[in-house]
């Protein structure tokens, strides 16, 4: 009896069924750890693991948000600029002379700003009807420009409680940022899997025409995913500002690439409608561990970038081979 219950529970969670890529990823990950550890044993030291866990969360959180957009068949490349803007908003609002805003309010403003950028993207994509890549390519440039404009010099935030947000640990070893990431990931997983909104996201991405003819509000659903993506990108900005205790116009430059790599590696289909956040979890760990491992193996920083690009192409290749094979099997 107990056995039967467990089974149906696992069936409900449906972790691997929708994402054939995840099991492969896990195997790749284990192999990778073994290789890096043999090159440099420090790789599996507690300090290093702590450092990996603390650094991956920013990309992970942003990937969770971007995933919702990609699932609807759209794309948001403005996430890196949104991160930059949010970080600068934190620094600027904290430093307004005489106002002394509580740090919680400052963070809230930054997150709302991110959501607002998402709303602008969403509006342009759904109401105006511009292709999402073009829309967010535009907002990417606009908000990067604004970030540079407002941060002509490095804006510092020397405030312990704020720094704790990004650098704090619980139980001495678990970074707070990891808790945010995992918390958000679990929350969004449940939203996607068990709520009407989540179901609509998958429907819109799987077949927008069929969704529209089933009376689903395709535009409203898409709009909200952009808001989510904007807000999570802003979360990334807050954490980055807190970890470094300052903000700069360059913050988040090129992040869209990093986050996209995670989503593709995670098996989130760029056509929409397919993929789960379980893949995002694993992919975030893999990508974070790679850059760290390459650093410990003394690979120069330029090569690390190149390596990440390679990973992206290999991931897309695996995905397209899988799709092609499925097509062949169907024909």
């Amino acid at each position, binding site marked *: 009896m107990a056995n039967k219950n467990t089974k149906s529970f696992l069936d409900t969670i449906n972790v691997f069924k929708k994402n054939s890529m995840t099991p492969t990823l896990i195997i790749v990950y284990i192999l990778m750890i073994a290789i890096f550890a043999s090159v440099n044993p420090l790789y599996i030291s507690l300090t290093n693991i702590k450092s990996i866990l603390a650094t991956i969360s920013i990309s992970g959180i942003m990937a969770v948000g971007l995933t919702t957009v990609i699932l609807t068949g759209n794309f948001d490349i403005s996430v890196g600029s949104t991160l930059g803007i949010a970080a600068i908003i934190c620094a600027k609002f904290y430093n307004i002379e005489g106002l002394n805003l509580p740090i919680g309010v400052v963070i809230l403003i930054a997150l709302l700003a991110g959501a607002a950028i998402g709303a602008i993207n969403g509006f342009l994509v759904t109401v105006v009807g511009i292709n999402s890549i073009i829309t967010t390519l535009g907002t990417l440039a606009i908000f990067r420009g604004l970030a540079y404009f407002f941060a002509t010099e490095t804006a510092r935030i020397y405030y312990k409680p704020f720094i704790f947000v990004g650098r704090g640990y619980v139980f001495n070893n678990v970074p707070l940022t990891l808790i945010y990431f995992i918390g958000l990931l679990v929350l969004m997983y449940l939203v996607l899997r068990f709520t009407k909104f989540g179901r609509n996201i998958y429907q819109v991405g799987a077949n927008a025409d069929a969704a529209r003819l089933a009376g689903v509000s395709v535009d409203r659903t898409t709009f909200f995913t952009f808001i989510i993506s904007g807000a999570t990108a802003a979360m990334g900005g807050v954490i980055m500002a807190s970890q470094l205790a300052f903000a700069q116009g360059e913050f988040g430059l090129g992040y869209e690439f990093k986050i996209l790599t995670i989503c593709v590696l995670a098996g989130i289909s760029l056509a929409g*409608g397919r993929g789960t956040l379980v893949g995002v979890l694993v992919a975030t760990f893999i990508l974070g561990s790679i850059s760290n491992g390459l650093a410990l193996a003394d690979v120069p920083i330029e090569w690390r970038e190149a390596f990440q690009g390679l990973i992206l192409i290999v991931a897309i290749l695996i995905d397209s081979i899988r799709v092609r094979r499925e097509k062949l099997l169907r024909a």
Partner: protein
Amino acid sequence: MSENNVVLEMKSITKNFPGVKALDNIDIKVKKGEILGLLGENGAGKSTLIKILSGAYSLEEGKIIIDGEEKVFKHPHESIDEGIKVIYQELTSFEPLTVAENIFAGETIGAKGGFISWRKMGKKAREILDKLNSDIDPFKVMEKLTVAEKQMVEIAKAIHGDVKILVMDEPTSALDEQDVDNLYKTIRKLKEMGVTIIYISHRMEEIFEITDRVVVLRDGRKVGDKLTKETSRDELVSLIVGKKFSEQYPKKEIEKGKVILEVKNVSYLNKVKDVSFYLKAGEIVAFFGLLGAGTHSLFSVLFGDKIATSGQVFVEGKEIKLTHPNIAKKYNIGYVPLDRKEEGVATEMTVGENITSANIENLGNGFMIDQKIEKKHCDKWFDKLSIKAPSHKTMVKSLSGGNQQKVVVAKWLERESKILLMNEPTRGIDVGSKAEIYKIAEDLCEKGVGVLIVSSELPEILAISDRVYVMKDGEIIGEFKTKETNQEELMHLAST
């Protein structure tokens, strides 16, 4: 016919699709310079036959013999090399490129050291177009041409190089009368040049105007092969439609209720013109029309997917403004769309998720989907419609066409729709599933649902409907009680 004159022979061609015999032992011979009309309803096997001839489908049983030599085509370019060219109904031109580039697609004309000579390409294109008496500018961009001109370019593309057999699939469906006349001239010219033409059309007058011989297909079998001058319109129509179908599906007498849908003077652009009709509870009303008659647009309007430019729609006596499928849904109108894969199902989602897709708001209170309620709903329709799949967690893409269609229907039964619009509900599904879909429609009528159906299959319309409206050029041109009409009358009205 003398054997040495035969340019193409197709011998005992048979093609099976999962659950359907698409072609059954077809024999066709075509002579050089002959214009052969290929007739048959949708699903009769015309396209399948053409796809086999063009190499788009592999030949499983039978032989294709060209100029006395047996050929096996594994890929469309192999049949093109043999001089078999097909002009599909949906033209496949490169819109942003010039006419000349389209005519010579895939070739480099007058190339020297990797550079293309535009001058030579233009000159050669001019020569080909002159042969067809066409004055289209070779350097005009494709997307600026009219449909008729585009078709001319397709023909030019087909006849440049070696063409023995030219297949034209409903070439007149988007042309006006003047253009059709020009097309006839072009076709006759091609005939003079010794090109053999296989001409597919639904329109009788065209068949009699242009063809030398006609072959009629029905349910994948060849049921007629006549010289055009020795046959009559009535004979062809009865060959096309057959007789037995309505006898296979005896219609149940169901009591009719009040008028639940009334449409008054609805127009949509120039596609639907001033259409008025009504539908009673328990009634199945069919719309029949040839391609371009406006039946599909009318249904899109009735479901709020396209917004009527004028006119009124009343549901149970109340006027409603159909501006979005949401509104139609709110007034219990359901819609089984024309293209199942594009508009009906999300193939990458499960059967269950598809069944409940139009009804998510009722799967529990608040934000959450209540898994128990969802499962209950799925199980109910899964069993009732006997959807053949391992479970409701199966991906829709692995289902057969008939079962996918049941999923689409289930989506709207789940919502307890009072009015169900079915656009070609049995297209591309096997005979068994067809019968099941009819049965579902009948059961719904017994519960007081009104069903509107668009179908291009007359036997189907006669078998299941109570009344029929015939449409042409966006207008309703006839209303019949199904019992008091027949296939010949309807086909005649729609095709003249």
